[in-house]
Structure formats: structure tokens, C-alpha cells
């Protein structure tokens, strides 16, 4: 789960990291009021789960309340990477003498948390990693001991060599950053930039946090940070009924059991010249109701011209899926043609159920995908 910058800033502040003030506005009037309160120059930043906000015009520097209102209005009218901006963060503009980067991430290949620091702050860290990896300092955290004080200190002195005051401040921030990560169940935390003010104080200006979805069951206070406005209504509905659904740009709606097979099915749609409209995994133990929900979600996408079921019955029983399809066609009006491929456990029962309800079923995956793609093209 992604959380917004202003939420991540708050979590870091709670852990004692120096985060400058800032408030969230949902209207331009509010933004103007906040700017008036702070006085002077303010930064207005779109709060949206997408990278590249600056390039998209989602970050602006405003001089005074009137300009803050004007810029907030522009930003709140934006859509960044398909996501409408509904909130902005308004914060006093900081005097910046130096910018650094600080991050902590679960590193998949080494199986540990890696802390990263770089004096090349304020820019794309992935780019730094690719072009000048020697400018990123790393510390691996042994999960048996957690972050050790000397590791934090070492990173501090790497960032600010010869400046013990700042190095110690940075070491403190590194330790708190790690604690914030563990407490929130995050898989990634970043401060970018970590700025030095002209008087030599460190400040976390921008914060980013990704939360491991698997942590949410035991962290209700983090789950509350979820912003449903930042997801499509269909994605929210899918999550509520326990389906994984991701909307895409194409016109072939896909209903598949299992994440790997769902991806492979999307790829096959593309391979045969079509475009998948979605990723949808109905999971392992499919009860008919999940299939009904899946069809409701897919038919709500007006771009869908053809629907493809691809079911490999193992633990999933094909007759359950067949019953779901028949039930759904009674409950909701499904206009796009449905192509059904199923094979495996209880395949014969499934075929009978479908045929007696006027559907036909196929067993070959490639054939079914080709047909679904062709049907989408006919209905363009």
C-alpha cells in the first residue's frame, strides 16, 4: 500500500525526525489560508500516488497567499498518470544549502534491510544507482541484531565527512528512519531530499513510504491511512470481496485463477494482437460468488468488448466457476461476448452446467485467447 507524502512526513515526525511544518488542503481557498498563516514563500505539492510530480506540474513555489491559491487551483485540476489530484501539501519554502538522500529498503536478493545514503539528493536515486553507484553508501542490517549504532554513524560520516555535527545529526535520523520503517511495516522509506539549512540544521523535506500489504492485518492505524480516492472504484470493490484487480487500457477483459496464469493470459492476449483490459485473479478456492463479483467488476468497464475466462482447475473446481458464470448471467446483464476456457478438476461437470445454460466451453488456452481477441476486434 502506498501512503501520501504528508502521511509519511507525519510518521517520520512521530519518530522524532525533524520534518518542517506543512498542512494538507483539498481546496484552493484552504491552500491560500494555510499560506497566509505561514507567510512568505510556500511550496504546493500534489499528493498523489505517482512519481514524476514535478515534471507533471504538480509541485510549485508560490509567493504569498494569492499565488498559493492560484497554483493550488491549477494543481487540484491536474491528473497525474491517470490519477486525479484531490489534495495538496502546503509547506513553507525552506532555505537550502545542501541536499542529500536517505533511504531504507527491503533488498530482495540479499534478504536484508539495506540503508542507503547519498550526497546526490533531490534527484532520481535510481538514476544515481545506475550511473554512479559509488556515490551511494550502503549498510546492510542483519535481521538478528537490527540496525547497530556504528552503522548509522558510519553513514552519517560518509554523508558529511569532516563535519561531526551534521554527521551525528544524520546518524540520529538514520536510526529513527529505520525504527519508523519497522514500526509501520514498510518495505521502503525515503527522505529525498534531506536538506541542510544555511545554519547547518538537517530537515526531511520530502518523505515516501510503501507499506507491505501483509502487515496491515496487525497495523490498523496504518490501514486507516489508505486513500480509497486514489484507487478506481472497481479496484476498491475488488479488494472488498477478496479479488485482485488491476485496470489496464485494453478491451479484452480477463478472469483467471492464479496470479502467474493471469499475467501469462494477459501476455497471450497481446501475443495474439489484442490488448488486455485488466489483471484479475479470482484466487485458488473459487466460490461462485467471487465469479459473480468478478463479472460485475469487468462489465462495469465500458471499454471491455470481449470477456475471457481462463481457468486451470487444480484446487479451484471448474464446476464452481461454471456455476458462478451462469449465476452472474442471471443477476447482471453481460453484453460483451464471453469466451470460456476451463480444464482440470471437475471439467466435465462444468461443461455440462455451461452448455445447459447456453454457453460453450473450450479446453485449449491458445485457441480461447485467439477467439476472445477476435471477438473484441469485431465489436470495436
Amino acid at each position, binding site marked *: 500500500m502506498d501512503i501520501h507524502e504528508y502521511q509519511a512526513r507525519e510518521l517520520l515526525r512521530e519518530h522524532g525526525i525533524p520534518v518542517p511544518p506543512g498542512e494538507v488542503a483539498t481546496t484552493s481557498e484552504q491552500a491560500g489560508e494555510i499560506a497566509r498563516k505561514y507567510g512568505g514563500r510556500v511550496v504546493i505539492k500534489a499528493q498523489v500516488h505517482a512519481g514524476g510530480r514535478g515534471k507533471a506540474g504538480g509541485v510549485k513555489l508560490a509567493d504569498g497567499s494569492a499565488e498559493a491559491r492560484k497554483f493550488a487551483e491549477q494543481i487540484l485540476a491536474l491528473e497525474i498518470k491517470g490519477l486525479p489530484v484531490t489534495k495538496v501539501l502546503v509547506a513553507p519554502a525552506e532555505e537550502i544549502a545542501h541536499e542529500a538522500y536517505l533511504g531504507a529498503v527491503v533488498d530482495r536478493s540479499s534478504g536484508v534491510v539495506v540503508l542507503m545514503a547519498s550526497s546526490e539528493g533531490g534527484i532520481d536515486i535510481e538514476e544515481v544507482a545506475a550511473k554512479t553507484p559509488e556515490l551511494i553508501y550502503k549498510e546492510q542490517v542483519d535481521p538478528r541484531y537490527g540496525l547497530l549504532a556504528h552503522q548509522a554513524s558510519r553513514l552519517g560520516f560518509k554523508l558529511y565527512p569532516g563535519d561531526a555535527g551534521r554527521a551525528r545529526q544524520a546518524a540520529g535520523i538514520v536510526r529513527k528512519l529505520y525504527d519508523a520503517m519497522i514500526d509501520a511495516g514498510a518495505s521502503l522509506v525515503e527522505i529525498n531530499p534531506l536538506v541542510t539549512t544555511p545554519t547547518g540544521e538537517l530537515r526531511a523535506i520530502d518523505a515516501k513510504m510503501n507499506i507491505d500489504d501483509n502487515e496491515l492485518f496487525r497495523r490498523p492505524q496504518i490501514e486507516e491511512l489508505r486513500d480509497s480516492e486514489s484507487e478506481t472504484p472497481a479496484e476498491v470493490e475488488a479488494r472488498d470481496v477478496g479479488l485482485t484487480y488491476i485496470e489496464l487500457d485494453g478491451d479484452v477483459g480477463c478472469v483467471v485463477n492464479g496470479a*502467474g496464469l493471469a499475467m501469462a493470459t494477459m*501476455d497471450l492476449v497481446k501475443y495474439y494482437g489484442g490488448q488486455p483490459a485488466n489483471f484479475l485473479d479470482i484466487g485458488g478456492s473459487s466460490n461462485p460468488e467471487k465469479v459473480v463479483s468478478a463479472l460485475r467488476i469487468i462489465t462495469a468497464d465500458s471499454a471491455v468488448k470481449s470477456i475471457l475466462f481462463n481457468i486451470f482447475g487444480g484446487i*479451484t473446481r471448474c464446476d464452481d466457476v461454471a456455476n458462478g458464470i451462469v449465476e452472474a448471467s442471471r443477476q447482471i446483464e453481460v453484453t460483451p461476448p464471453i469466451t470460456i476456457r476451463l480444464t482440470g478438476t471437475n471439467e466435465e461437470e462444468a461443461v455440462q452446467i455451461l452448455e445447459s445454460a447456453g454457453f460453450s466451453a473450450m479446453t485449449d488456452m491458445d485457441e480461447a485467447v485467439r477467439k476472445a481477441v477476435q471477438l473484441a476486434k469485431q465489436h470495436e
Partner: protein
Amino acid sequence: MAIFADKKTRVLIQGITGRDGSFHARQMLEYGTQIVAGVTPGKGGQRFDDSVPVFDTVDEAVQAEGATASVIYVPAAFASSAICEAADSGISLIVAITEGVPVLDMLRTVRYVSDRGARLIGPNCPGLISPGQTKLGIIPGQIAAPGPVGVVSRSGTLTYEVVSALTRAGYGQSTCVGIGGDPIIGTNFIDCLDAFEVDPQTEAIVLIGEIGGSDEQEAARHIKEDLSKPVVGFVAGRTAPPGRRMGHAGAIISGSQGTAAEKIATFRENGVEVAERPLEVPDFIASALGG
């Protein structure tokens, strides 16, 4: 032969009295798996289906029944603890089927298991099957057949699809291992490749990867350097958008890292053939095995 488990493997099931555990315990028994014990804390002394003895702790099950492998079906909140308990009780092969285990827990758990010299497969995986001998997990028995092909995969149903196609084409399997779709897992592609390399039954290997992380890229380089047996690859997620988790917790393209295109290119650079479609895999295996 096979890798990791065969007909002699003495298996215990943690969570045997639960809904998933009991269902799959029956499926495994039917397949011929030697299930010697079950563990559910608080239900020690009972018998599962009037036959398999149930214990409160893994320690007791190991002492009484000599179990050497464990399959775990407990809920996500207790999975890490169950894995550690198995490793601490001398179990050498731990298969964790459970989905949804927090990643930060797994960092410690994976280290704990390896410190005790045990092997963990998963979590969030379908387990493994050595056709005709045993199965530990949820892979449907009827789709597999004994033979010379080793299969290793990050996925579940996509693996079944490929295994089933191999079986239909007349290519049975030595062992099929689902290593799991999470970012932090116990056994990776390279561990399985090395095991297949020294397994006399295995003559060719199928590796099914997907977007996210760099395990496939590392496997590709390893194949070129250290493997003599032919490997056929498949990578799911060519059409996956960046930054979105595609069902599996580990199936996510971060920035420009972990795309299917990158993985496929790395396989091909290292001389590994990659199938374009899942059902093309048997054709590649046919040519790898010399027709």
C-alpha cells in the same frame, strides 16, 4: 531419484486440523505421501481421520514419529513462528504454503532457518511434487507424471498449466517445485537448479519466472556458468504495468527494474531459450532432449 523429497520422506503437517490443512492432508495421503504426524497446538492426543497422530508441538512429532519434513498451512499471523519451530525441532525440509506472511518477519525467519541448516520452500507457494513418489503441498497430483524434466516456478496455476502440457506431450517430471511469489523466500531458482543439476533423473529443466526482483537474471548467469543440463525459460508479465503488484507480493516492477523484457533478454544473453507462450514449453523440451 528426485530433488528435496521422495517416497521415503516422512512428512508432518502443521495446521492439520484447519480447513486448508485437513483438505490437503487428505489429498496428499491419497497421492501416497507418508504423512506420519500432524501438529495443532491444543489438539495433541487426537487422531486425524482416525489415523494420523496429532501433537501439540513439532518437537513431540519428531520424537515420536521421526518426521523429517513439514508442510505448513497455518494462518499468516502464525506462519513465521511455525516455520521457526519446525527448524528448531530438527526438521530439514519446511514447505510453507501460507500466503500473506509479513516481509519483515520473513527476513528474520529465513535467517533463522538457514542458521539451523534447514531448507525452507516458500512461503506463498504450492509446494513440490515428485511424481509417482510424494507430494508436499497443493499441486494437483493428476497433472504430473514421472519423467526426466525438472520444473521450478514462482507461480501456482501457471506451473500446473505447463506441467500438464509437459505430461500430455509425454514428458514426465522428476520434481516440480513452486518456490513462491513473495519477495523474500527460503529457496530460490539457483538452489533448485543446483539440485536438478546433480539429480540423475533430471535431464532438462523448465524455469518459470515472472516480473519483479532479479532472481531470474541471477539464475540466467548461473546457468551459463555452472549448469550442464539444458534449461528452458518462461517469464510471465510482459504486459504488466510498472509500480503495480500483480497478485503476488513479489510481482512488481520497481521503477525500471524487474521487467519481463529485462529478464527475457538476460536469459537469451546467457544462452537460455525462452518460450513465448506457456504451451510452447514442451516443444523446447523436445528439442533439448534431442526430439
